[in-house]
């Protein structure tokens, strides 16, 4: 990979790779040492045919681990994921999915704060003015996103206003074909947002999902106003529905030139991948870069999850999480996309064109909020 780049970018890429390798070594030592590791990995170590402490020295060595299974994240006790080195600290549990059966959960202490503080550094102050208040127009309940966005607002000196939104209820409505019920619930959520935005809270920044942002913008237009007129200057949004065409539509028709929007890609396990800075030459193409070295995204072939596809080629998203709170080697995401080259700001691989993994796409209910 290193030979493909020249000059300054090549040295940045090498530096990032060296930093990642060192981070991997440090993370493995933490999670597999009897004094600091979590019960889950200490137990798993006994089943492995290799010793992670001595045989995993860099990122490539992580391929020695078997494929990470979704099921390992379901059910209790959730404290099996708590590293001994962090015992005694106040902990959160965040869930994903869970419309039916036991949801996957992740124990978190401060990771969501760290991830969003790092993300904060990528936001332009002119569009996300420090000290201004935020609207969180996304899922509530046992979701990481709600507390993470709230922390982001507080970290930047503001207060976060939230709505009630239960995505599991929406999935239930969709599964029984109750389209009117879905519409009524979406209206209920948007009504909450409109009330907050028009109540004099001086909100200038927002998180929103594409669907909700679209519905909010249209609702405000129906009321004779707009996202810009109610005072919003900057929005970050995420999800596979944030396509290049939607990005363009959003910029050109929903928001106008004075409201900044940036795409993000993330989940409870990874944190937040940032979009490559907007460049008109990209024609709204969206490229994400994971928050390395805390998390790594690889685009791998569909038949061999240890083999990265070539640049520009399509593959499935493989996620590795490497924080002190969580170690997840090679989690196969339910998304696919194209591998992208490192960027000056993010000198490691990126991914574009993220969309539901084609094998699951027909049976997955996406973008419910």
């Amino acid at each position, binding site marked *: 990979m290193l030979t493909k780049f020249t000059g300054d970018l090549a040295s940045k890429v090498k530096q990032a790779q060296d930093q990642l390798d060192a981070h991997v070594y440090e993370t493995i030592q933490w999670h597999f040492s009897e004094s600091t590791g979590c019960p889950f990995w200490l137990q798993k170590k006994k089943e492995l045919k290799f010793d992670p402490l001595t045989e995993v020295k860099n990122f490539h060595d992580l391929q020695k681990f078997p494929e990470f299974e979704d099921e390992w994240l379901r059910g209790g006790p959730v404290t099996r994921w708590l590293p001994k080195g962090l015992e005694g600290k106040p902990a959160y549990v965040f869930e994903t999915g869970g419309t039916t059966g036991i949801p996957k959960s992740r124990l978190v202490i401060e990771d969501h704060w760290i991830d969003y503080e790092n993300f904060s550094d990528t936001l332009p102050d002119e569009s996300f003015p420090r000290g201004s208040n935020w609207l969180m127009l996304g899922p509530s309940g046992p979701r990481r996103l709600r507390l993470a966005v709230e922390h982001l607002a507080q970290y930047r000196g503001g207060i976060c206003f939230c709505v009630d939104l239960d995505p599991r209820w929406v999935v239930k409505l969709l599964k029984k074909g109750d389209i009117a019920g879905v519409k009524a619930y979406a209206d209920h959520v948007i009504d909450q947002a409109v009330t907050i935005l028009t109540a004099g809270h001086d909100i200038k920044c927002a998180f929103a999902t594409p669907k909700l942002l*679209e519905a909010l913008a249209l609702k405000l237009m129906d009321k004779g106003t707009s996202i810009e007129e109610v005072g919003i200057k900057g929005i970050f949004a995420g999800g596979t529905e944030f396509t290049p065409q939607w990005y363009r*539509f959003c910029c050109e028709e929903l928001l106008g030139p004075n409201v900044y929007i940036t795409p993000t890609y993330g989940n409870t396990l990874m944190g937040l991948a940032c979009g490559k800075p907007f460049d008109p030459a990209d024609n709204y193409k969206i490229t994400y870069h994971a928050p390395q070295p805390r998390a790594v995204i690889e685009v791998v072939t569909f038949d061999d999850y240890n083999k990265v596809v070539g640049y520009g080629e399509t593959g499935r998203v493989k996620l590795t999480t490497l924080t002190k709170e969580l170690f997840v080697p090679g989690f196969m995401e339910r998304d696919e996309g194209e591998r992208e080259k490192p960027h000056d700001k993010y000198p490691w691989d990126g991914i574009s064109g993220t969309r539901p993994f084609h094998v699951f796409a027909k049976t997955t209910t996406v973008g419910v909020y």
Partner: protein
Amino acid sequence: MLEIPVYRWGKPYESIEKADVVHFETGEVLAKVHQANAGQLAMDMRHAKRARDLLRQFSIDQLIEMTAKAADYYLNGTLPLGNGTQTPADFCRMQSATTGLPEHMCAANMKKNYFVLTHMREVLEALTRGLPLEILTKGYGMESRGVMLSYQANSPVLGMVLPSNSPGVHTLWMPVIPLQIGLVLKPGPQEPWTPYRMTEAFFKAGVPRETISLYPGGGDVGAGVIEHCPRTMIFGGQATIDRYHGNPRVQAHGPGFSKMILGDDEADNWEQYIDLMADSVVMNSGRGCINCSGVWSPRHGKEIADALAKRLGPIAPLPMTDPNAKLAAFTVPGVAEGVSNQIDEGIKSSGGTITEVTEKYRGGPRLVKQERCDYLRPTVLHCTSSDLELSRAEYMYPFVTVVDCPQNEMLKRMGQTLVCSAITKDPKWSQELLDATTIDRLNIGPLKTIALNWLQPHEGNIIDFLFRNRAFQNSPPPPH
């Protein structure tokens, strides 16, 4: 490369996302169709009222004249298509290449659309039961018999979520523009050809561009059409029909389960009607909801099935350009095989009550697999019982069940039927058939199920769907 843009109230919009429309036999990309997103539709629907306002600047009579001109352009003209143009021959070739329908059937569908477009006055007179058409424009008016009438449009536009596999359905929306209602069309992914060609024909004939939108796109766009248009026609399977059952905003069209039934009085004359039956099954490659999928008779079921099988069994795939081609191709991988397996499983589990009769006349398997498409050859099943689901099945190829059933049991057992051709002279049974709400279009007499009279309503009268007959007074009523 031919590129076809989104039309937002007639204005071309070039999207970043494009979908390839591919020749099913060669894999050649015939066109790139720009994809809309649901938000655009929601945004544009804020101007839906303008479509009706613009159309009401013309009288319905003027729009009928434009429609007749549009018919000529559609059938004979070279019309714009995205960044290119399209002749009628191109149209047939392209439609055949993406839908799998033989070219001569595409040409026949063009003529059918032409017929409806050029007979619009008669169609509207019939569907409105002779209503003075200015009442629809103005909202009220006096009938010649001195009765005040008022009709109010339920929607300024009609949404259409169109299918990919059945170009025959387009006649349904032809009366909409002359009725001064705008169109919001979501073309089927494999059949953008008719909606775009008709739209261009309307524009060339003088219909304002701002009255028609075309939003090719994914499922979210279809859902958006239904959400934002106060009246929408959609096409789908039985699940779609069930989902929108009772929803006054949506008219769902799906399988027809159309049938020919023989009464006790005519069953012994079955041989006279075999040609009618065979044509009803095989025309348009059996793809339409009006194609006959069931022949029900109190006697001679075995002989009827055998005679039908003898006629239909030998029909085999021919090139799309062959004027004798009777079979359309299945262009979506796995569909034909899935259908064929389903039929085999149904026969196997029927305990001997269902038998395939076509096999012996076919000289080969039902499923014909080719490199890039599949065919299903005509299939006639004889059912000695109507208890099993397969005896009432409908598939999108020449497939028919011949069901043994006593006359007095038929209405109870045959279920929902879009077109029912009843061969009987029995007045009592005829009355029962007339009273049966499970039958939509009823033919009494030796009529093909596919022989539609365009002056009759189809699955509900479009006038009743688009307009509301309500009370209006501008003077006191007579004392009472």
